[in-house]
């Protein structure tokens, strides 16, 4: 199946949400840590060193973020491409060619998102009641790599809800109204309130339409070579084709209910109502 309206909308929304939360909330932090060697059965021809933090920042639009992580080995800094060095921003790790010495002491200096952002692949209730999440490592714990591919918290999970087409103008133009929900998992109430506050302020703003081809990362989690000077959300989303966020409603799970949730996290919801004027029957 080709990429249809809802696919492209969710892709565009994901990239906007990520950028908006990072930028408006300054929701990121720089880390300088060791990287730990481990094997990944999905990647047979590479040597993997993982950091304790997932989802490094790669968007040049985020001020003062390290979008070109500084990686160092036993003999000093290692430039991207040397020994096949590539970054896996999503999994917070680096990949080297298969002949790279696994005994090397590798460290990195990079920027980590305060909230990982994911497209939800399960229902809201399943996410909250049965979710077994890894937590991005924090102070007071033994630092090691976070396992790849698993979803780590604090995080925001995005999912599409109901969609309706309402007649808007002559010529078959409809207003396509789509509900999008972000379920926010935070480590503390300060963090949750911050995320909800940032997102509440997005009402009556717009975000750009970004086709699937505009997705920034490769299958290895590195920035695509199409972005020769780096990925910058503001450039990618600026072609004049926009969605409008009509309403935003934020809420938290009530205190009494929060105590019955098995995950040791603070949970909130951001419900967006997104408008797009289009000709669905053409």
């Amino acid at each position, binding site marked *: 199946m080709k990429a249809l309206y809802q696919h492209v909308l969710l892709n565009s929304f994901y990239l906007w949400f990520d950028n908006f939360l990072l930028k408006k909330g300054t929701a990121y932090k720089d880390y300088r840590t060791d990287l730990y060697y481990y094997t990944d059965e999905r990647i047979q021809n590479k040597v993997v060193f993982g950091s304790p933090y997932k989802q490094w920042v790669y968007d040049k639009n985020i001020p003062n973020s390290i979008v070109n992580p500084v990686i160092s080995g036993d003999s000093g800094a290692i430039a991207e491409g040397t020994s096949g060095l590539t970054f896996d921003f999503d999994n917070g790790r680096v990949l080297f060619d298969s002949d790279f010495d696994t005994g090397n002491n590798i460290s990195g200096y990079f920027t980590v998102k305060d909230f990982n952002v994911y497209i939800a692949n399960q*229902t*809201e*209730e399943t996410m*909250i*009641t049965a979710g077994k999440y890894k937590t991005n490592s924090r102070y007071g714990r033994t630092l090691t790599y976070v396992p790849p591919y698993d979803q780590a918290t604090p995080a925001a999970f995005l999912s599409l*809800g*109901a969609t309706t087409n309402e007649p808007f103008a002559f010529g078959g133009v409809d207003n396509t109204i789509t*509900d999008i929900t972000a379920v926010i998992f935070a480590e503390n109430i300060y963090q949750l309130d911050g995320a909800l506050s940032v997102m509440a302020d997005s009402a009556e703003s717009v975000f750009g339409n970004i086709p699937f081809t505009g997705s920034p990362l490769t299958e290895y989690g590195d920035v695509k070579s199409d972005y020769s000077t780096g990925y910058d959300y503001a450039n990618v989303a600026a072609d004049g084709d926009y969605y409008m966020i009509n309403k935003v*409603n*934020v*809420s*938290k*799970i*009530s205190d*009494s*209910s929060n*105590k*019955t*949730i098995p995950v040791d996290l603070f949970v909130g*919801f951001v*419900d967006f109502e997104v408008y797009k004027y289009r000709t669905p029957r053409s």
Partner: protein
Amino acid sequence: MALKLSNKELQTIEKQATKESSFKQEVRRVVQKEFVDIHKQFLSNFDSHPVTIEIKGGTSATNISKTLGGIGNLFTYIGFDEGSDPIKSLRNLLNIYEIQYHNRKRSISVQIKVPTKEEVFIATPMPWATGRSWARGIERGISGLGQYLVKSNRMGRSRSGYAIETQARVRGGRFSNRSYISSLLNDYYKNIKNLEKKTFS
């Protein structure tokens, strides 16, 4: 002999008439009567809506709205506290109206204020997340989280205890949206607008 009046004279009489208290009273009587009929019809539609009846039925209601495929009921699915009456507070809000009369040059215009959809959504919070509206959720979709929280509370604090006993496991199916308060309000607003369009001169 027929009395012939010029337009100007007619306008003067109209202008004068709208200032007469008997005319004003008659306008109020007519408007009030017509609006009460509209309002009664609206509340009747609300009261007889399957969603209203089902939620009003509390923990023992059957899923006559078909939103849950006939399994369980909306009251426990949403997660209302046992003994609570979410319909009552909504109906109280829908009962509110205000009719304003404005004297124009040669007529009296009527403006009727009733709750907006936004006000209705604010007044219908989910029991477990007060920023979300269950009334809107009926139309756009509700997660089954409320039901889970009800089930969890069975072990600790109590919420809809009775429903938990009748429903041993959290339902795996999905909620089916259906039209509810927005649709009822749209008809209500349309009838009010028609009444407001009438001129009394």
